């Protein structure tokens, strides 16, 4: 139970909102549950619902509505490449295809070793640093961007970034 394993964090989250508005803590508590359990399990929905006084059905609605919550396990981490049009104008689709090829997956798939699920996502507010991607893992979400317009992120650099995550066991 989160309330047992993460008591301090649960209390800290609840304290941010008025005492009679616990429901506002739903989103941070869902992030906490996702970090603790890898994805939002039915049990996690029950727990979060119990902490804020809403049904697990309502919590499931949130998990379905918001893109960054997952109700099933995929790869250990997600690599999410922005291929929205401002990035696409600067080569993001080509980058995504080449990275997929190197990883031996198509967009949406998970690498055979279970380490990475590769996804194309909508704008991440980094249009001047395209190509770019974010990694979502148990530690949160981290950006990896081109150093500048004349130094677009290469597939080899991206593979190095990913290797750093797996070798360090970061967020695993």
């Amino acid at each position, binding site marked *: 139970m989160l309330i047992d394993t993460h008591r301090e964090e649960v209390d800290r989250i609840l304290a941010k909102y008025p005492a009679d508005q616990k429901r506002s803590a739903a989103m941070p508590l869902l992030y906490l549950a996702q970090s603790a359990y890898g994805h939002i399990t039915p049990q996690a929905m029950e727990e979060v619902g119990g902490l*804020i006084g809403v049904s697990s059905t309502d919590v499931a609605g949130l998990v379905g509505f918001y893109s960054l919550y997952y109700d099933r396990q995929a790869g250990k981490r997600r690599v999410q490449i922005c291929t929205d*049009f401002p990035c696409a*104008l600067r080569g993001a*689709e*080509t980058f995504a295809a080449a990275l997929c090829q190197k990883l031996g997956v198509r*967009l949406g798939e998970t690498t055979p070793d279970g380490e990475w699920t590769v996804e194309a996502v909508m704008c991440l507010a*980094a*249009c*001047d640093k395209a190509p770019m991607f974010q990694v979502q893992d148990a530690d949160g979400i981290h950006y990896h961007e081109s150093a500048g317009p004349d130094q677009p992120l290469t597939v080899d650099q991206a593979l190095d970034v990913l290797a750093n995550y797996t070798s360090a066991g970061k967020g695993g």
Partner: protein
Amino acid sequence: MPADETAAGLPMGSQPATPPPAAPEPAPVKYERLLLRHRDIPDLHRLEVYRQHGGYQAFKQVVTTLTPKQVIDEVRASGLRGRGGAGFPTGVKWSFLTKDSYPRYLVANSDESEPGTFKDREILERNPHQFLEGVMIAAYAAEAHLAYNYMRGEFWDIALRLDAVLDELRQAGLLGQNLFGTSYSLDIHNHLGAGAYICGEESALLESLEGKLGQPRLKPPFPADKGLYQKPTVVNNTETLTNVPMIMARGAAWYKTIGTEKSPGPKIFCLSGHVKRPGNYELPLGTTFRHLIYDLGGGVPSGKPVKAILTAGASSTVLASSDELLDTPMDYESVAARGGALGSASIIVLDESVDLAWLTLKTSRFFKHESCGKCTPCREGTYWMLNILERVNKGNADKADVDLLQTVALQIQGKCLCPLGEFSVTPVLSGLQKFRADFDGHTRDGKGAPAKPSAARPAGTAARPAARKAEPTPAGD
């Protein structure tokens, strides 16, 4: 005429078809940066550095010497308009708060998710104290004792840093009880969204902050009357709030000397797409497209002419490029006079290689994905626009399908609960109006051959600047 428009070397008479061959050096900046001050002051993100440069003096002065109404009057007098897209006068918005109704809340909208927009992120990362001082002053003006900074979930690492900054401010006595020995108390919390563009719409943001689905509310009542927890609430964009400390420190009269009469002040323009130097550029409102795109952005990498400009991300009217457009001042009135809207000022440059059938496929996919599902015209309409555009782009459509696309868009237009649905048709209808041949060129009966070479490009290959290396199989559209 803004000051930096007089910069030497402005290619006033040059044709868009013949931009300068090499990227010229950016024109000298005569204008003092007010929002992106961190570019001129190293380590401005650190509290002691910010305070060395006058930081939190305005907040202290406001709390100790002014009434909330005086603050509202000053901001109203400055003419500051909302920088999130709508351009509504900020001081007027504050003055709408329902009288004698408490508690009240101040909410910063840092949900920045419009494709092509990346200005608030730079403020939050590099100049967080000026933003937070703006939150504090706005909260005081609103008589709020609790404020939330709602950030998109992807700003995770920024939120971690800002949490530490807020702790630092509490320890420094800049947040907490009885500030500066007065009876005023304030605390601020960060709140992360979780990947939903719609939460940038203020009433959807409030729903989300209440732990519900991020779906817009029917208005009225407006948030100034029934906002967070059904209490009077001010919701302001991050960049808007970052203007406030400068206004209070230097005065409304000074602020009005920047920009144009009806669009005063500085604006951060997010330049992206087909330019050599994309990035954020802070300029007075009223600077021309040409100055931004050619003098500062270095022009188009491929050397091709600019085909069209988007000014408000995926929500933009497609503005066909022309000398007149390039010489148009970027302020709310002038861009509206061209049939567009300045919006969040995300200036996306499209060179002649860009196929509008592809571009609207991308914008429609975005809106279909981001539609909250609450109202039918948007939920169903974006689905069908995307469906038709996928067929058009695959060559599985006739010209009648392009007509159908227009019909569907017109059926959505004017019938949605919130601006998201309305935005979804803007690029489609304006794209069809100005570049219909791009769409027809894909159709089976569109006279066989495309109207322009770009319209028949192999999928996913031509909508980019010169390829850096050959990549045979695109992953996207």
